[in-house]
């Protein structure tokens, strides 16, 4: 069987899915480097082809199906393309009922991925901490999934009068928010600024956070369940109650 390779964008993925579904193949992979095997073939990313496929998928199922596919693709989980092929094939068979088809393995798997992505975006919408650098607000993060588009939209809408940068240090990419809109760009780790032009609010926040903790009701398991330790590194407060600086964020 032939593997259809694409350029790692969502549009590219849509073209590859179109190709795979048309040819009866269910092997799709992002292209890293040149096609190495006889049975690999690159599909060109064609915005028009992507648009047509998108419209066919929505017409056959629903906009929500497309949205879940997009969210799941943001997870960047290796080898998940096979699931996407099966997901779309099923969508063209059962139509709008796909969203309720929890018994189908690929449907369920894609919905789980989509949910993991949206859960992480929702969490980070709370956990991001911005610091002030002149007229610019900057927040770093190291998410499991490629959630920048979701965060960009959230913060561009919330603070339309500000210039804000959300920096994904792991992927060395950033969402630039301005005037209610955002765009994505590459941004190396080394460009991350440090500190805050006004150091008082972070200190006051630490004070408030300690005051809000009720020692008589200590329940760290619940705390870690809601706010896993991997997210603690970029917080301003010290969730463990330790007031030391530079907590590494790696739990035992």
């Amino acid at each position, binding site marked *: 069987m032939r593997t259809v390779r694409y350029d790692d964008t969502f549009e590219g993925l849509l073209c590859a899915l179109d190709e795979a579904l048309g040819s009866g193949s269910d092997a799709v992979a992002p292209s890293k480097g040149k096609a190495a095997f006889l049975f690999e073939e690159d599909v060109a990313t064609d915005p028009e082809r992507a648009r047509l496929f998108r419209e066919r998928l929505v017409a056959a199922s629903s906009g929500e199906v497309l949205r879940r596919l997009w969210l799941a693709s943001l997870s960047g989980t290796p080898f998940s393309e096979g699931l996407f092929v099966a997901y779309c094939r099923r969508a063209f068979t*059962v139509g709008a*009922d796909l*969203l*309720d*088809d*929890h*018994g189908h*393995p690929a449907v*369920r798997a894609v919905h789980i991925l989509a949910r993991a992505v949206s859960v992480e975006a*929702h969490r980070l*919408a*709370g*956990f*991001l*901490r*911005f*610091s*002030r650098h002149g007229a610019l*607000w900057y*927040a770093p993060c190291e998410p499991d999934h490629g959630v920048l588009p979701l965060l960009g939209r*959230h*913060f561009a*809408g*919330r*603070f*339309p009068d*500000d210039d804000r940068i959300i920096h994904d240090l792991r992927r060395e990419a950033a969402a630039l928010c301005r005037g209610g809109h955002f765009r994505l760009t590459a941004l190396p780790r080394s460009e991350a600024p440090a500190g*805050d032009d*006004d150091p*008082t*609010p*972070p*200190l*006051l*926040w630490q*004070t*408030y*956070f*300690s*005051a*809000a*903790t*009720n*020692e*008589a*009701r*200590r*329940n*760290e*398991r*619940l*705390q870690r*369940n*809601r*706010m896993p330790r991997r997210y603690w590194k970029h*917080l*301003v*407060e010290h*969730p463990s*109650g330790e007031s030391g600086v530079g907590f590494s964020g790696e739990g035992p």
Partner: protein
Amino acid sequence: MDRERKLALLGEAARHDASCSSSGSSRRGASLGGVCHSWTSDGRCVSLLKVLLSNRCSYDCAYCLNRASSDVERADFSPAELAELTLAFHRRNYIEGLFLSSAVVGSPDATMERIVATLKLLRTVHRFSGYIHAKVIPGAPPELVRLVTRYADRVSVNIELPSAESLRRLAPQKSAEAILGPMATLATALAEGAEARKKSPRAPLTAVGQSTQLIVGASPETDRTILTLTQALYRRFGLSRVYYSAYMPVGSSPYLPAPDRPPPLRREHRLYQADWLLRLYGFDVDELLGADDPLLDDDLDPKARWALRHPERFPLEVNGADEKELLRVPGLGRTTARRIVEARRTRRLEADDLPRLGLALKRARHFLTCNGRFLGEAHLGPEGLRRHLADGPDIASRQLRLFP
């Protein structure tokens, strides 16, 4: 006094207020709804800057740390100071917004005026679009109560003590009328606001809900009394939430439990569970607790307790029972009940499908059949089933660890 000290005092003084909800705003930028920004090591979500404007209280409620006769350090924020702090935290994404309460400083009118002044400053001068929850002070005049609904997203009047008798004993300066009066004013104002928005999308924004808080374990009311009050509040005043706060001993009074008694956290937890059943699962308080049997079980959640007393209602067929019935099965929640009903539309469910629907059958299987086959264990018997459903030692030990 410096800002840091003030914030520590007035933040700590406000932390006993249980409400944490920041969902349901009609303002711009609140689209994600219910965003939590952090969790403290007591496992509670931090989404709002929860502070008192002042803890200089003129009232002397026995259960309260800030009562007039208590020997605590006193502090006040000015409206300008607090507005500035809220903005600095909000722009750094530490918080969704502000949760503002206050001790009764002088009179309810004067206190309410200061709270309104702070909110007005935030909304009109600073054009703050974050979330605001404001406390309405018992006994505040209707004009001010109405004004609060113009600036806040949510409002609440705390009942604190679940009966008029307990209020007389422990909070002599408050009365049931002083609490229920503002609640009724709020209910009317919120309904008018919702009606206006229905007619025109450009109608002015107003608060979208009111809640309240009850202290559990400071006074002798039974769970049945508390939940009957809760149900009346949901039905009569359309409250969106009732919060419960386990009493933390702060003072001694002949009417209060001994100061060394641990806070009744398990009871608080059970009340929340019962509250969900009343609000979202179609239960009535009379089904959960009878007059001769007014307390929830310590080791059994309220739904399991009800199910064990109604063996005639079970087992239910997964492929047949309607959503309302499924909601009454211990171990099935709103999401899982809905998933079953949805999945049934495309295919008849087999036992193997159930785990793939994300159903944890550990508890639910004892109440279900699938295509006529019982999913539980026939030989268990009522006592065995009860043991199966009772909360295991891990929750109990977690609670014990709190009091070394």
